[in-house]
């Protein structure tokens, strides 16, 4: 087979285009739902929040600011932030593991977060108010990552293969643990099951702040190391000979990506396929250089989850858990992409 010449989109156009699309979709989605609000009204409600522009809301229905600002916007922006966080950490995990099929699940990080959160819901832990579930999810994710790294590393170096194997093993043990928690939960079981299926229902500004904070921290750390991550794709030995502090960079990125995905899981439950599908698609569009891939994945992940959440919220007669929707849409699409790549590749 003759090797193909690549055609890549110019990132100078793609990134602003994705951002513009994201903002438009956020405004339009804020108007959709049981009470219809026009995009112009949405913009007026938002503008009225700015100092000096309070009179923008004059003449609007009293209900609209509440519906848009208190109910819809935090949920919509949370959906976007979770999508961006999952897609970014998926791209980072794929880069570190040198495996285009890796994502927060492959390392067991999501299962760890889900286990921690389920335990929190089972025991009714409330030591830190609304943050309790989040904190337990992060604890679960971090401990899982530590266990996976310990299992897979020999004299301080963990091979990508070992990491994935260990991740799958630990995730299997944890899902049995989650099963046990569900069995023990009695009347609480519905809460846990619904949470595990993934949902953005009744997300407030607090959830948004948490996700956005973790996401922005992640973005800064990821972008600082983006070039090192790209060099790591050549293998640790080659990256080290090109001046990359391989052990430190890998550890920093693994911990940060786990933190970001743990917060996403804690806020929204398990939402699959975003972290797997989006980096895959973006790699085909902008190429595998993480300096472009990471911001492009963040924008596209935000778009996808915001779109999916709007469908479950405003278009379907009953609200379907968003994790179920992304899996139903994303799963077969991923199979199609994966199969086509296999057929096109032949030997690779």
């Amino acid at each position: 087979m003759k090797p193909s010449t690549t055609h890549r989109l110019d990132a100078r156009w793609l990134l602003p285009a994705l951002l513009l699309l994201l903002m438009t979709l956020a405004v339009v989605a804020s108007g959709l739902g049981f009470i219809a609000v026009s995009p112009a009204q949405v913009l007026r409600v938002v503008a009225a929040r700015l100092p000096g522009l309070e009179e923008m809301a004059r003449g609007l229905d009293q209900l609209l600011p509440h519906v848009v600002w208190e109910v819809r916007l935090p949920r919509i922006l949370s959906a976007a932030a979770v999508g961006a966080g999952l897609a970014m950490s998926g791209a980072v995990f794929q880069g570190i593991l040198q495996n285009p099929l890796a994502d927060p699940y492959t390392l067991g990080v999501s299962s760890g977060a889900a286990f921690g959160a389920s335990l929190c819901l089972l025991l009714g832990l409330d030591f830190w108010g609304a943050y309790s579930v989040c904190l337990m999810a992060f604890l679960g994710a971090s401990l899982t990552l530590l266990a996976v790294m310990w299992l897979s590393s020999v004299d301080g170096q963990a091979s990508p293969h070992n990491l994935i194997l260990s991740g799958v093993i630990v995730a299997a043990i944890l899902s049995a643990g989650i099963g046990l928690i569900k069995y023990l939960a009695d009347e609480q079981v519905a809460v846990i099951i619904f949470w595990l299926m993934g949902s953005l229902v009744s997300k407030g500004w607090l959830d948004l702040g948490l996700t956005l904070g973790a996401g922005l921290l992640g973005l800064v750390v990821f972008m600082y190391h983006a070039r090192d991550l790209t060099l790591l794709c050549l293998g640790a030995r080659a990256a080290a000979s090109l001046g990359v502090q391989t052990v430190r960079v890998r550890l920093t990125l693994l911990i940060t990506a786990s933190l970001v995905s743990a917060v996403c899981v804690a806020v929204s439950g398990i939402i699959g396929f975003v972290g797997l599908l989006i980096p895959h698609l973006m790699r085909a569009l902008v190429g595998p250089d993480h300096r472009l891939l990471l911001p492009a994945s963040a924008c596209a992940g935000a778009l996808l989850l915001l779109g999916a959440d709007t469908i479950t919220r405003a278009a379907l007669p009953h609200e379907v858990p968003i994790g179920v929707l992304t899996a139903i849409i994303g799963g077969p699409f991923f199979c199609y992409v994966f199969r086509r790549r296999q057929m096109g590749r032949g030997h690779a």
Partner: protein
Amino acid sequence: MPETPVYQITGLRFAYGPTPVLTGLDLELPAGRFYGIVGPNGCGKTTLLDLMVGARAPASGNIAFMGRGLEAYPRRALARSLALVPQEMPMGFPFTVRETVLMGRHPHIPRFAAPRETDLAKVAQALAQLELTALADKLVPELSGGERQRVVLARALAQDTPVLLMDEPTSHLDISHALAVLRVAEDLVREQGRTVVAVMHDLNLAAAFCVHLVFIKQGRLHAAGPAEQVLQSGSLREVFGVKAKVGWDDFAGSRVVIFQKPGGLA
């Protein structure tokens, strides 16, 4: 006053867990030569390169690089003096040939800066030297094994370092490309005074290009010196346990090795 050797290695020891690999290796490599490291499988050649490039730390012993302890160099500074051509390059991601070779320039480009004219010129030059210009915009995962190996070499050439370490640089190449690649390395040494250290499996290629040979056996230095002195049937018997005839050949323009298959007439 003699020039500082590129490498001064003393009492080098290394083990993977309980398995000793290097057991007290001493080696001194003066600058400006083409060295070939030869030895049987598992004798510690690749491990030695790993230690020489600083990817692993020795259990004991010392490696001085250009007169200074290797561990004293910051990674990026070292990457401007020392390039490595590893044996295998994992390539799960669709980088183009040009992008991959440009990665060799990263030790010279600040973290957030774009490549300069000189960087792009070095990349173009490296692509031309390894006859990759026509493949520059192809995807690396879709290339053949030999083409990929040349991409790795081109990346190391673009790195533009005074010292180049190569781990079996010709293992996936046909004989014509193998000769061409080693010729490029030979020119680096001859015309630009650089130092090349290559782990070699093919003893005839080693004899043809490497002016100095280093024999390693069971994690120790067995012999080192000019090829005409150390490449002898005796040393091949001691290190590899094979029967061989070694002699100068006018057609090859170098020493050649002819092997006898096991159980053949002695």
